[in-house]
């Protein structure tokens, strides 16, 4: 198992290196000037542009820029943002906690509520509850998250004033407020964006889990478990659900990076200070250093997602390890 894990980890690092190299050159091959945002407010003269190009190393040959990026990366330095004139690592470090909190909350809701409802549907196939949940999940899946976010912010935040309509914390809260008060405040701000993202993702997970569970329910080993006189709860969750997890584990691997990058609209609507909005601004402004930093994180999550999926498969199914 250790050798398998080591081999798989090395493979992941190689994939990451190739992805980053491709991203570096593809970004620069795309049309658009990273100093375009600087010209947005007041057009810059050619002399001013040349000075800025020299400052950010954009006047260097592509190969030199690549070597500079790699040598910085090795030292943990991702360069300075063209847009913010600040170190990229500091920018990412500031935004990452908000993203992980939102993405993590959605992931937890998704893989608890979504899985549970999917199994319930499968067990109650074609009954009234299954039909209702199918209709609700299809409705949730078809709802665009940015629209849902706008509606929830208007209804819950503005009309009913039950929850904050935007932001991540109340700036009027005293600096000396205790951890519990602060955590409660963040939680209140988290509810609407997390709900907006979860409704869509839970619907998808329910559909996957229902289908996977239905395939397992009629297999012979389930009949054997029942014939042994095991309680129905144990038959479903211990024998059935474990074998119906494989497609959902794949889904987890796919969701992991999407939850970091896929919340751009929701972050915008709720003024949530996460990585998605930072990356979106960087794409818009061709802020190469920030783009590479964000890409490194996303590529890392893609690779990590794949790696964790493989490990989970191996743990759940010995045949994978043997293969």
């Amino acid at each position, binding site marked *: 198992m250790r050798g398998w894990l080591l081999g798989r980890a090395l493979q992941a690092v190689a994939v990451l290196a190739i992805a980053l190299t491709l991203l570096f050159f593809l970004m620069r091959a795309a*049309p*658009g*000037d*990273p*100093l*375009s*945002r*600087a*010209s*947005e*407010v*007041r*057009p*810059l*003269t*050619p*002399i*001013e542009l040349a*000075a*800025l190009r020299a*400052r*950010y190393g954009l006047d260097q040959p592509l190969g030199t820029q690549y070597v500079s990026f790699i040598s910085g990366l090795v030292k943990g330095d991702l360069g300075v943002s*063209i*847009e*913010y*004139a*600040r*170190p990229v690592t500091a*920018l990412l470090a*500031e*935004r990452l906690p*908000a993203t992980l909190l939102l993405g993590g909350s959605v992931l937890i809701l998704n893989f608890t509520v979504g899985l549970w409802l999917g199994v319930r549907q499968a067990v109650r196939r074609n009954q009234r509850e299954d039909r209702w949940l199918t209709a609700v999940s299809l409705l949730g899946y078809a709802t665009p998250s940015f629209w849902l976010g*706008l509606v929830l*912010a*208007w209804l819950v*935040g*503005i009309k009913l*004033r039950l929850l*904050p*309509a*935007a*932001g*991540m*914390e*109340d*700036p*009027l809260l005293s*600096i000396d407020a205790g951890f519990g008060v602060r955590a409660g405040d963040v939680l209140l701000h988290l509810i609407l964006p997390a709900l907006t993202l979860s409704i869509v993702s839970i619907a998808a997970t329910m559909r996957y889990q229902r289908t996977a569970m239905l395939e397992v329910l009629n297999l012979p080993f389930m009949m054997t478990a029942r014939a042994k006189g095991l309680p129905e709860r144990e038959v479903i969750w211990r024998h059935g659900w474990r074998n119906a997890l494989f497609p959902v584990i794949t889904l987890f691997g796919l969701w992991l990076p999407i939850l970091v990058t896929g919340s751009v609209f929701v972050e*915008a*609507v*709720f*003024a949530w*200070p*996460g990585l998605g*909005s*930072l990356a979106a*601004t960087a794409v*818009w*402004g*061709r802020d190469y250093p920030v783009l590479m930093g964000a890409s490194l994180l996303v590529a890392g999550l893609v690779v990590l997602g794949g790696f964790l999926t493989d490990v989970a498969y191996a743990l759940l199914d010995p045949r994978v390890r043997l293969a």
Partner: protein
Amino acid sequence: MEGPAGTLGNLELADQLFLRLASPGPTLQTSGDRGFVPLLARSWTRRDSVTLAFDLDPRARWQDGVPVTARDVVFTFERAKNPAIAPRLVGLLRNVSSVTAEGDRRVVFRFARSYAEQLYDATFHTAPLPAHLLDTMPPEAVAHSDFVAHPVGSGPYKLVRIVSGQFVELAANESFFLGKPKIERVIMRVAPDPDARINLVLSGQADAVDNVIPPLDNIQRIQSDTSLRVIPVSSPTIGFLLFNQKDPRHQDQPHPILSDIRVRRAITLGLDRQLLVHAVFGSYAQVPYGPVSSILWIRNGAPKPTRQNVEEAKRLLSAAGWQDTDGDGVRDREGRPLMLNLSLPTTSAVRRKLAALIQEQLRQIGVGLELQQMEFPLWIERRTAGKFDIDFAGTVQDPSPTGLTQAWSCSGGTNVAKYCNPRTDSLLDVAINTRPKGDPAQPWIAALRQIEADAPATFLYTPFYVYAVRRRFRNVSIMPASSWLMLREWSDSR
């Protein structure tokens, strides 16, 4: 260190922390030595046509209690004129030849030549920094220094904390020499999305919001909250259709259609600009005369913009040889249809909506317009390279009209359409370099008349920025050049 995008938010925060020597008055007059409001400088005197002496207010203190001195001003301008630190400022301060101290309280500016905006150049572009905290620090170290996280300014507010991506908290500077601000705690929240900004103020999480942008529904949503007051303010923004004078494919040759002034004027006359502006901005924008946004003082006394005249537009096109010979609704000449591309960025909802309306209005006079919407960086790249027929430009202007030379003179650094008329250059030169005895706007208006006559662009709109502030705040004033500059004089009746 100056970043490439000196974003408005950063500048407005800086205005709360650091005071300038003086600021333009309510009319934003930038010409001459009068009309400016003293700030760090108590007064100024003109020694000769190229020398200005400023006397600093002896009460002025840095927030650590150290007096503001002439040494601070000299130090700041030394740094500001270093191209490695502030490339943009170097260009703006090119006419400031030296800044010297005469004792602790007097600072003398010498200029490279005599011109009308010396006081503006000396006071507007940068605010003094504390030399006693920064002069031992290498310039390249400032961006990563503790000073950036905990700046010590001379302004009405002190920085308490910055929560990245969320808000900036300021506290009143109790020893501010022009009077302690009445509002003791100010929080500037960050919300790049317009809907999120409006939601913050409508949900009661904010007391004021800046720049509520079209669609008009947004302003109506604000107006539906009776606790809010809507305040339109002149803006530095101007939108226009820029006609390329050169062929985008062979840039050493004139544009096959738009190099003809009759076609350019016909396009301007074919558009009902008042109607277009009203459709998108309601009453919150004006049609400008020439490339003049509503904050430029030279707009006063300028003629009214030409109104739509479809018959004259058609006559001009016919006179230029463009006729609809095949009856397809688009004019043609020698087998070539009168079709033009209009480039615009996808990021501007205002321009996207206006472009569709313009396309329809020009169709009425037989001009075909193909809309080319593109991602912002690509649009900028093509614009800068002169690869467009008509560019839907939207720019922000400084309060000084001298910036007009950049886009509308033959050698202008941002003259991407290659408009060139030596007479316009000469008129701009006169306006910049003379110190008229009468109305200082008149030389500028002469230049604007020439630009309008040449029709290098159709000047479409200059909007008002719409702000909303809770009614409980008193003595509210919002400055066009720096929105929250006068926040120190607001008070809360609650």
